[in-house]
């Protein structure tokens, strides 16, 4: 059977590193990537010379050879690119696992670095040219109409979910509030020290109705890095290994061509690629939603979290609104989420800070530690496809 997998718990994340998350790093993206990478190696008790593989995100401006140079590696035996964008982080870990299992590498550095606020801002319209589209992008069917940003795409999904299931703006607000509450206990979070109430949430300006300011993620300058190696080797390193129980990638059924906007043509507007990704992930892990102690959901927008809570099977489709409003996503709830604050309140490192926080949880070193957390779901499932992984404490 495809995916009757031989990677279960065989590899582990042995080291994690992060820079400061800010609005203006005042540094190059390469400088940030180098700092995060050195931090991850130090965390693992490894030296740069131990690295023989690097996996990067296709959106990154730092190339493999840039890091090889700054870290002073004498050679690189394996290098990979994964994307698109925020779909990458879990799949990047998966590619590192595949490289190790195939014998192409032993110690793989995985990183994401961006000046997402002071440099290229994802929330701004990317359109500067007079003509748009063609060449398989299909952007010509969308951008000339003013459909210009991912936030507007997700607003269309949110509106449909509200029509179908009676989901309310307050429901989405509960996701924003949960992430902000976690960030307020995380000194590394950009929104540390900035409390948010439901009144604040509802009073914030609309960006693309029904999504308000606090339904949108932050823009961040910063970097995160991971070191992936075999579990056997990780057990001899500095920190308790975070076992990679399983990884998976998934597409929407009947995926649309193009870059991102054609996703609004997909049959259902209320199911993400999270659903097929979840099915594969749980099968490979031999686990299900009941086994998950804590989750780090990719949260470019609040609605993205709500849809994933349904797609990963924590409640039925359509019941996400009542699930998030009932306190289930809080630290004392059934499913604490985004315990570092997530993209909504910790920082936007394009999904990689979610992997870092997942490792902290299964090590027991989160600033919002879920007592006894042994199994953490980490998702990279916005659109158009997705990826996800499950981390497990070494018991």
């Amino acid at each position: 059977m495809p995916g009757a997998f031989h990677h279960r718990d065989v590899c582990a994340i042995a080291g994690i590193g992060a820079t400061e998350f800010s609005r203006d790093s005042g540094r190059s993206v390469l400088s940030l990537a180098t700092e995060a990478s050195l931090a991850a190696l130090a965390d693992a008790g490894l030296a740069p010379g131990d690295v023989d593989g690097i996996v990067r995100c296709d959106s990154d401006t730092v190339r493999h050879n840039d890091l090889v140079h700054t870290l002073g590696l004498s050679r690189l035996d394996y290098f990979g690119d994964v994307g698109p964008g925020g779909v990458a982080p879990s799949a990047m870990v998966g590619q590192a696992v595949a490289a190790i299992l195939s014998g192409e590498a032993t110690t793989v550095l995985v990183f994401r670095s961006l000046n997402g606020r002071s440099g290229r801002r994802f929330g701004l319209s990317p359109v500067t040219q007079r003509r748009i589209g063609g060449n398989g992008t299909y952007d010509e069917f969308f951008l000339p109409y003013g459909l210009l940003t991912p936030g507007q795409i997700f607003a269309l999904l949110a509106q449909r979910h509200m029509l179908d299931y009676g989901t309310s703006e307050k429901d989405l607000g509960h996701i924003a509030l949960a992430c902000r509450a976690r960030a307020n206990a995380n000194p590394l979070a950009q929104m540390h020290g900035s409390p948010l109430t439901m009144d604040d949430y509802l009073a914030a300006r609309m960006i693309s109705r029904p999504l308000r300011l606090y339904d949108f993620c932050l823009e961040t300058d910063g970097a995160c890095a991971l070191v992936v190696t075999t579990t056997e080797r990780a057990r001899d390193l500095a920190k308790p290994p975070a076992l990679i129980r399983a990884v998976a990638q998934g597409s929407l059924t009947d995926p649309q061509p193009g870059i991102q906007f054609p996703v609004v043509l997909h049959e259902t507007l209320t199911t993400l690629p999270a659903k097929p990704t979840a099915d594969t992930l749980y099968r490979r892990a031999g686990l299900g939603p009941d086994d998950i102690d804590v989750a780090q959901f990719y949260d470019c927008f609040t609605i993205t979290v709500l849809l994933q809570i349904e797609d990963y099977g924590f409640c039925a489709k359509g019941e996400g609104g009542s699930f998030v409003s009932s306190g289930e996503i809080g630290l004392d709830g059934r499913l604490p989420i985004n315990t570092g604050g997530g993209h909504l309140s910790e920082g936007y490192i394009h999904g990689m800070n979610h992997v870092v926080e997942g490792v902290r949880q299964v090590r027991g070193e989160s600033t919002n530690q879920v007592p006894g957390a042994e199994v953490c779901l980490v998702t990279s499932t916005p659109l158009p496809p997705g990826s996800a992984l499950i981390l497990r404490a070494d018991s």
Partner: protein
Amino acid sequence: MTDTTDRPRRILPVDDDHDTGGFWDAAKRGELAVRRCDGCGAVLHVPVPYCHECGSWEGSWTPVAGTGRVVSWTTAEHQVHPAYPVPYTIVLVELDDHPGVRFVGHLAGAPQLTDGQPMRVWFEQLDDGVVLPQWAPV
């Protein structure tokens, strides 16, 4: 046509792409057209050069009725492009005669819309002879 004003210029579609150019040619004739497979009649939308249903590489641009229903909408209130002043509303419209085939449209302001609202296509003339099929409430 020379644009002599200082107003920001709207984004124009690439209208001569191998796979999608026929859609914009049809719009210039005042037709909303979809690509249909000559082999089996399947609607290929967004337009693609090959029909995986029957294996045909042949297709034709076929006019459709130009009526549909709103399946979702969002009103943009935060401006991200100077030629698209807020508020404006993006509608996602599904064709009456080809359920599952969708287009987006642009409405000025924040009109009251309802789920399933009937819509009809119209054709907006832009610079450089470009014609954009648009949607208005019936």
